[in-house]
C-alpha cells in the first residue's frame, strides 16, 4: 500500500472558470498562510496562460490523499 499526497491550488480565471495547479509531495506542516501566500504570488506574477485567460483570484486549496493497493502485479 502506497500513499501519495497532492496539493491542489484552484484559481479563478478572467473568464470565470476554475484552473488547478497541482504539486506532489507537499510538506505536511503547511499552513494556510503559506499556501495562500504562494497562490497570491502566482497571481501577482501572472506567468501562466489558460484557456480562460489570466489567473485573477484564489478559489480554494486542498490536499488530496491517494492510496494505491496493488491487487495484482505480473
Amino acid at each position, binding site marked *: 500500500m502506497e500513499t501519495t499526497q497532492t*496539493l491542489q491550488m484552484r484559481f479563478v480565471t478572467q473568464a470565470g472558470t476554475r484552473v488547478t*495547479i497541482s*504539486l*506532489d*509531495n*507537499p*510538506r*505536511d506542516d*503547511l499552513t494556510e498562510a*503559506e*499556501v495562500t*501566500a*504562494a497562490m497570491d*504570488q*502566482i497571481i501577482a*506574477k*501572472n*506567468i*501562466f*496562460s*489558460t484557456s480562460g485567460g489570466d489567473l485573477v483570484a484564489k478559489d480554494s486549496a486542498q490536499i488530496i490523499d491517494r492510496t494505491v493497493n496493488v491487487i495484482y502485479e505480473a
Partner: protein
Amino acid sequence: MAVDATKYDSDLVLKVQTGTDPGTGDPVVKLRRYTRVKPEATHDAVYAVAEAIAGLQVHPLVEITRQDDLRLEAG
C-alpha cells in the same frame, strides 16, 4: 537567408531531489513540469513563482529551469 526565431511556448521545470540512490549514494532527481508559461513572462517572474511553488513541497529544490520553444521562420 535570414531566419527569425519567435518564442511561442514556455515550460517551467523544477528539479527536486527525492532521495539518494542506495547503491551509489547519488542524488535521485525528479522533474516537476509546469506547462503553459507565457513566452513573454520575465525570468524574474518565473523564478519567483518557481520559488513559491518549491517552498510548499517536501523535497529540496536542486535547480530551476525554463524551457522556451522557438518557432523558426525564414524571413
